[in-house]
């Protein structure tokens, strides 16, 4: 009986300490840029959900497509209705493993996150470089990478093709805090 109780205590302790090792942000920032000679287009999303499990080094990110804000209302409309079809595919997600997670300490280091990025209903394996910094209160992650529109079956009509780059620069900045509830 005693061993059983100890076992349960240990079990509870482990699950509790596990849940404390989760870091999360509900207002991560993702910005994407399309740089073309005719026009620069930029959109911001400051409502990105990102979770890091500090016990395993796993990372999960969820993005609402409709949260991307453009300077011009018409561009935002085209983006949602024609390009990423956000009624059909309201979210983009990324799930992956942080490489060298144990090496991340207070001083910022460069490492990579290997995982699957899903946009427009299409999943693609990617390895994304990022700067990591970890203290007791925060895990900060930032960096940038490029995505090809073709990879995610995003079609740009010929009329506006000159205005939109086929390679889109994506930059991200997340400031995770320990999750408590």
């Amino acid at each position: 009986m005693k061993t059983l109780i100890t076992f349960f205590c240990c079990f509870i302790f482990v699950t509790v300490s596990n849940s404390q090792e989760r870091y999360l942000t509900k207002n991560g920032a993702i910005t994407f840029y399309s740089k073309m000679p005719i026009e620069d287009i930029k959109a911001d999303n400051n409502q990105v959900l990102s979770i890091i499990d500090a016990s395993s080094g796993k990372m999960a990110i969820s993005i609402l497509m409709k949260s991307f804000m453009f300077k011009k209302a018409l561009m935002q409309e085209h983006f949602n209705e024609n390009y990423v079809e956000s009624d059909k595919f309201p979210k983009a997600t990324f799930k992956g493993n942080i490489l060298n997670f144990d090496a991340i300490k207070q001083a910022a280091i460069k490492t990579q996150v290997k995982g699957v990025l899903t946009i427009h209903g299409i999943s693609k394996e990617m390895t994304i470089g990022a700067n990591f910094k970890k203290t007791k209160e925060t895990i900060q992650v930032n960096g940038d990478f490029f995505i090809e529109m073709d990879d995610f079956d995003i079609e740009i009509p010929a009329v506006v093709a000159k205005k939109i780059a086929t390679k889109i620069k994506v930059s991200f900045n997340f400031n995770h805090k320990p999750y408590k509830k």
Partner: protein
Amino acid sequence: MKIKKIIIGILVLGIIGAFIVYKTYNKPHVNVAAASADISLTADEILNDFSSNENSANSKYLEKIIEVKGVVFEINIEKEKGIITLKTNDDFGSVLCHLSDEATKKVNLLKEGQAVIVKGICTGFLMDVILLKCEFVSQ
């Protein structure tokens, strides 16, 4: 004479056309402060709708102006913008209201536990229902 009239006609059409193109191109974003809400409900109701059936809630609420009544649970300022979390019966989810620049100025008058009504544009559900460009209806 006839040719002149035709040329003038074409010119006028051209100018009207260019004006319409310019207007559509520079179409302004929805003005949440001036617009009236499409749907008004409580924080619990909207969260329940999203957590019970996200797809139907998406088609019901997305990109609409939603007026939500709730109790302030948390107030945060991120990048000079106010974010209010509204309390719900759910343990994990809540309603996250990202305030407009105007509404952010009024955020220091706000206290946790206070009842508010905000309206904003719903962009979806992650862990919480997310409303953007929120304005205070009553505070």
